[in-house]
């Protein structure tokens, strides 16, 4: 799945007349400063201007433990081409002050080719940063801001950075107008002056990386959490009961605003036990339902999810993964809820697990998950990640897959006037489900094992038949090509999942430039396993590199358990919060390619 129809795209700038005259297609930069310094504001303005200039972007944030204030960094990558991964390092760090910058210095990934733009009045550049060997350039942002009535250092920084990377200052100022002018004209004036001052001063900072120019095109600026929420309603979700939790809260916030506008219902539940069970109730009532959470909340939903599986009541949970175990690191990313998502339910409880591969793909994957859960009358878990959910991307407008919930409903009892069999043993394993209000089809849904009528049964035969039906309906469904992203034909395959797909893709491009052809296999559908499709995807492959962001190689273990892999399998893995970058994957691929 590549190109136009893919729910997310990589590759060349889509504007055919784009003639980038400069060599740089991508620049990574970071704004840092303590709470209130306004680094996030500056970053957002830059992103908006970039989008208007036809660029693509990725914008993540790293912040300390404080609820308000505290140090923070905005991590940006701007590019003339769609971006789906952070780059190997930060090209430009601009710091308004140093706060407790050491808390996330590792996430900044500076190296000798980087430039640190520091305010000389903020004190020494901390050793942990200076040690990178990055070139240090001085910009007295605080002094310059003070020279402008109402001026702020973050606007100086913004102006400077725009010039350094080649985002047109005029577009920037136009954006400022939109966001500030209506509110306070004086703030607008001060900001414009500060941006211009910064832009002017930038010329003395020495040349850095400049992006090529792209003609403006239609773009979306969206976070993964917004995308997942939009996917939910596009898929037909009209009910959400939820309990807030970082980093999933924004999905809930968006749905709490949107659902009441489209005839849906949002309810804040007392806890996650209530939210999942309220969703089951709504779904039993015939209304597609979804909730979103993070690891600790998912842990609390496990029993309810089992009920969804056994009573065949469709429901979807989006788990925006964060650092684990337990409360772990709520604000940082990791791919470590794979185990619980795949195997967390007690008993034999087949269900769906899907994973989004990029910010934009949160939309498609959630939408698809809703339609699958509805079609198969089961539980769907969508795994996304903090780095997708809480990061904002500037992307091409995603196509609407048009997928929408279609539940197989029962309209009347059996033609022969026989009693309605809620759990009838159909060939597909999916049984027509009566929605309350349907005359003559009354039944009692049950989490106890049951007969075809739904009557509780402990008979071996009923158990076997119902277990088998629940397995069959998932295993035998045709999920189409979307089950995985598969690209290339090399004898070395890279298997990954989730957000790491983006970095893997970029690494494979680099390997190609080095003459190594690598196949990419990234399953979007993790459960049920697709052994036949995976075997086809692995045809001719003799070495595999598995890439994942967990400490205990959860993905590799899963692949081994259900798929037949070639004899040579390497694994590049690391827990969060440090992103797995294209460079390290590239490196691993090259050493694999040379040894295999």
């Amino acid at each position: 799945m590549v190109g136009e129809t893919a729910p997310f795209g990589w590759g060349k700038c889509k504007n055919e007349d784009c003639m980038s005259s400069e060599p740089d297609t991508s620049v990574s930069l970071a704004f840092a400063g303590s709470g209130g310094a306004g680094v996030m504001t500056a970053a957002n303005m830059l992103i908006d201007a970039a989008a208007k200039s036809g660029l693509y972007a990725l914008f993540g944030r790293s912040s300390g433990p404080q609820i308000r204030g505290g140090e923070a960094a905005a991590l940006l990558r701007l590019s003339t081409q769609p971006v789906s991964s952070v780059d190997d390092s930060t090209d430009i760090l601009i710091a308004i002050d140093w706060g407790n910058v050491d808390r996330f210095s590792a996430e900044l990934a500076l190296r000798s080719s980087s430039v640190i733009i520091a305010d000389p009045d903020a004190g020494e550049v901390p050793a942990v940063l200076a040690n990178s060997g990055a070139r240090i350039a001085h910009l007295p942002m605080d002094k310059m801001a003070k020279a402008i009535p109402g001026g702020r250092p973050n606007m100086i920084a913004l102006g400077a950075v725009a010039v350094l990377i080649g985002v047109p200052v005029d577009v920037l100022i136009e954006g400022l107008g939109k966001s500030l002018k209506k509110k306070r004209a004086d703030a607008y004036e001060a900001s414009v002056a500060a941006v211009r001052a910064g832009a002017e001063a930038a010329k003395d900072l020495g040349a850095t990386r400049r992006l090529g120019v792209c003609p403006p095109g239609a773009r979306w600026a969206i976070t993964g959490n917004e995308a997942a929420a939009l996917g939910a309603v596009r898929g037909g979700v009209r009910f959400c009961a939820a309990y807030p939790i970082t980093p999933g809260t924004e999905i809930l916030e968006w749905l709490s605003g949107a659902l009441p506008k489209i005839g849906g219902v949002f309810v804040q539940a007392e806890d996650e036990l209530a939210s999942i069970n309220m969703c089951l109730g709504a779904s039993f009532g015939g209304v597609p339902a979804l909730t979103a959470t993070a690891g600790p909340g998912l842990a609390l939903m496990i029993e309810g999810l089992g009920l969804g599986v056994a009573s065949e009541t469709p429901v979807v949970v989006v788990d925006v993964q964060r650092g684990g175990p337990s409360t772990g690191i709520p604000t940082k990313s990791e791919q470590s809820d794979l185990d619980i998502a795949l195997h967390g339910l007690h008993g034999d409880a087949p269900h769906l697990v899907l994973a989004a591969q990029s910010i934009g793909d949160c939309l498609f994957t959630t939408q698809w998950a809703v339609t699958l859960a509805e079609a198969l009358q089961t539980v769907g878990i969508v795994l996304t990640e903090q780095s997708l959910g809480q990061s904002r991307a500037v992307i091409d407008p995603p196509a609407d897959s048009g997928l929408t919930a279609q539940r197989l409903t029962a309209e009347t009892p059996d033609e022969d006037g026989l009693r309605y069999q809620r759990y009838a043993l159909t060939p597909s394993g999916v049984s027509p489900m009566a929605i309350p209000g349907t005359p003559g089809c009354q039944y009692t849904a049950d989490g106890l094992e049951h007969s075809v009528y739904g009557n509780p049964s402990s008979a071996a035969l009923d158990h076997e038949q119902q277990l088998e039906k629940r397995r069959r309906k998932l295993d035998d469904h045709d999920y189409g090509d979307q089950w995985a992203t598969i690209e290339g034909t090399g004898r070395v395959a890279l298997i990954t999942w989730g957000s790491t797909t983006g970095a893997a893709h970029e690494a494979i491009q680099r390997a190609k430039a080095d003459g190594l052809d690598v196949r990419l296999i990234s399953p979007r559908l993790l459960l049920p396993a697709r052994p036949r499709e995976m075997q086809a995807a692995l045809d001719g492959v003799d070495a595999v590199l598995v890439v994942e962001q967990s400490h205990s190689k959860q993905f590799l273990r899963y692949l081994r358990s259900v798929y037949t892999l070639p004899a040579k399998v390497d694994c590049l893995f690391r827990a969060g919060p440090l992103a797995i970058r294209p460079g390290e994957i590239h490196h691993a691929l090259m050493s694999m390619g040379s040894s295999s």
Partner: protein
Amino acid sequence: MNAPACSIPTSVAEWRSNLKPVWCPGCGDFSVLSSFAKAFLELKLDPNQTAMISGIGCSSRLPAYLTSYGYHSIHGRALAIGAGVKLARPDLTVVVTGGDGDGFSIGGNHFIHACRRNVDMTYVVMDNRVYGMTKGQPSPTTEADWDNSAMAPPGGTGVAPFNPLAIGLTAGASFVARTFSGDPNHTASVIAEAIRHPGFSVVLVLSPCVTFREEERLWKERVHKAANTQPITDQADAARMLMADDGFTLGVLYKNERPAWTPSQRAPVAVADLDAQFRTG
């Protein structure tokens, strides 16, 4: 989704499904089942417009014995499921039912929040002051000195029972009643009144477990009707009354007209227009 009128039962028997209850002979829950049928008959409910939601326990088996739609779910979560049904499908009559363990021990949090939220549904708890299904352990309504259980020390747990109706009231329930399974007509009429009440209504039915608490057969001698024939309408008065009560007063003890909660609805927007906010430039 309105059903043809002919689907409305005209006898108690029509409200009963053909599934045989698993209950012990003499269990109080049999007569609660018949009270439901009577109340539904009185209200002329349509089985296909009625949803009975329960958790797990002897009492929670009840939904499958009626011809309505039902969800026999998991232990302690019935009220959450019920709220989901009602909020998604306000056209249905939603009744949640189960036991004292299901509702007040493992399900206690959903109970207080259901009272607070005041969704228009009815909660009927068959209180036998014991966990029947798991063979006789103390519940939150069990007397502190009851010790005829393999899980209670001689002399009982020493933990005082609490009064779920008082808790429900303070948590915000807008209709609070107690009945006795030994008086199925009274129980039926209170259930009917509770269902008519707009908002969250709680009906505690004293329903003896003859297997693990044989002595509850004597409840018939302890129960008595409330002195007032009209329910108290002041919350503070009702709180005082319930805390001073002996736990055997029957009737609708408190009722107010707080409007049922319904989720917010806003000016309609087409789904296709929801993405406007993401478009740049």
